[in-house]
């Protein structure tokens, strides 16, 4: 599987996302230096790197939270470098967050319904008169779509629960559900498995693969668990101190001496006969 040719996924020749030489500075700190890469439609593309390498900053540039000082980002044939975050959601970019970012006081259902925001047409006025003017009909249609997502992520039992009361693992799943409800072309996942136990990780990996293969979503994933990354990614990019130091098939990246050097002393990438390679060949 480490060849990156998972059966089932259909990867297009054309690129969906084009990141071209972006640099991002916070005062004197260079969080990203001239990073460029492309992600093709249908790909599951992983970004790895040591803590503070700039992975989250990169996702933030793509989703619009940060504006890079240099470089361009093109998505689906459109230059989005200066587009506002809410417009990017409508353009088809969804994301989850490294630190949970649910709407804590809302129900799980409402959280996920917010994901439909850009697809819904009812407004303040038609919403207030719910029964007349079509808001009810539209809401119920979208409720159906949301229920499909709820079924897929197996969170039916908590759909009415207040998001803030859920366990960590469930919250991560609800966050994914909310992003999926957006019906994005590209979904950005920032450490979707962090803090999970083995069983939860396996579930999450399965959801991600299904999203990619069955729902046809292009995915960029940041993840520290090398076993999972090597197992499910088509391609991997490595960041270190804000620079891209490698990009390629999982096996190529793993064999890259620069990558080994970057991870030297880090216990989660044990090369050669370590647990990572075992996980990959398993």
């Amino acid at each position, binding site marked *: 599987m480490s060849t990156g040719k998972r059966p089932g996924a259909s990867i297009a020749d054309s690129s969906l996302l084009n990141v071209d030489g972006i640099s991002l500075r916070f005062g004197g700190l260079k969080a990203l230096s001239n990073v460029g890469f492309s992600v093709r439609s249908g790909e599951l593309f992983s970004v790895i790197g040591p803590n503070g390498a700039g992975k989250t900053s990169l996702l933030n540039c793509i*989703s*619009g*939270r940060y504006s890079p000082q240099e470089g361009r980002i093109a998505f689906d044939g459109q230059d989005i470098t200066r587009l*506002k*975050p*809410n*417009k990017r*959601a*409508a353009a088809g970019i*969804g*994301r989850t*967050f490294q630190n949970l*970012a*649910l*709407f*804590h*006081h*809302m*129900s799980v259902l*409402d959280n996920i*319904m*917010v*994901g*439909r*925001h*850009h697809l*819904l*047409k*009812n*407004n*303040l006025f*038609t*919403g*207030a*008169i*719910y029964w007349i003017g079509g*808001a*009810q009909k539209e*809401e*119920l249609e979208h*409720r*159906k779509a949301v*229920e499909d997502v709820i079924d897929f992520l197996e969170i039916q*039992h*908590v759909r*009415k*629960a*207040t998001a803030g*009361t*859920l366990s960590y693992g469930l919250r991560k799943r609800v966050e994914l559900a*909310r992003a999926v409800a*957006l019906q994005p072309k590209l979904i950005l996942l920032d450490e979707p498995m962090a803090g999970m136990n083995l069983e939860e990780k396996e579930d999450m990996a399965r959801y991600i693969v299904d999203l990619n293969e069955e729902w046809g979503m292009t995915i960029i994933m940041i993840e520290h668990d090398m076993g999972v990354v090597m197992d499910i990614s088509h391609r991997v990019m490595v960041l270190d101190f804000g620079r891209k130091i490698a990009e390629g098939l999982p096996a190529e990246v793993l064999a890259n001496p620069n990558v080994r050097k970057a991870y030297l002393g880090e216990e989660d990438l044990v090369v050669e006969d370590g647990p990572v390679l075992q996980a990959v060949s398993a």
Partner: protein
Amino acid sequence: MAIDTMRPCGDYRTSYRADQTIFDTRLTFAFIVGGIILLALAPLVLSNYYLSLMIQIGYLGIAALGLNILVGFSGQISIGHAVFFGFGGFASAFLAEHGVPVPIAIVLAGLWTTAVGLLFGLPATRVKGLYLAIATLAAQFILQDFFVRAAWFTGGSSGAVAAPFTILGFDMSGDTRYFYVVLVFVVVMYLFAANLMRTRDGRALIAVRDHYLSAEMMGVNLAKYRTMAFGISSFYAGIGGALYAHYIGYMSVEGLDILFSIQFLAMIIIGGLGSIMGSLLGTIFMVLLPELTGALAGILQGSAIDRALHLKDGITYMREMLIGATIILFLIFEPDGLAHRWKQIKAYWKLYPFSY
């Protein structure tokens, strides 16, 4: 699993439609409808004094709901709600004087107040928290000053006459009849709000409150919804103020001060931030509070406490102190307000005798 609904067990939904109702059980629905019918019968049995209290609860409750949409639902703040209430009153009196039928004048006054509220809500697109609070405080003083100066609009210091409420030539003034006018407005305005909160724009408001960064990533335009909350809030304040003006028959700048604005805040804190019914409960509480203090002072009359504190002269101070103390007590002991307590009582009775 932590399922946080307080619905009786065994109450399953068979369609999404049934699952999306405002009233979570048939019992609640029956309760609310029954309550409205009972209220409609109230003028037959209640004295004008109690009717006037209920009318007060009505127009203040509408304005309080508006403030709750801004503060409780969208997570912003306004320390100037009273002036929007006042603006609605003046605007409706002004429109009625220029020949607009009163029912239409009230609605137009609401819209006019919305426009003003949007204008003063513009800072919300740039600032949050304490800075926004100061900006709304500015609105309080600017509009209060405007009311004094703009005699063409407000009648200056002598105030403006507000025409009596007539509909199709039928006079609806007087406690007994005006009660129905206010009841209709309360029901409609509360239904609007309940509907709003279960549809797209209402959810977006709450999302902005709970986590604005991820709301934006979900496609919500922050500036739009922050300002919109001010608009909705002012609309409700304006309608409330207009109902007040045509009830009293007169609108003056007096009383539209910051203390009144703080009383609106007290209503929603006591009732429950982010709760629609809580807005009404808090208003009931605040309207009945002076009645209570009055009664209390009556009971204590002549006693040692009365002699020591001069209750009779101090009653207005006592009232203000009591409001302050109540806000603090609620913030400490019941931060979710009366609405939360109400929910628990409801849940208890629904499960009775199998409460667990």
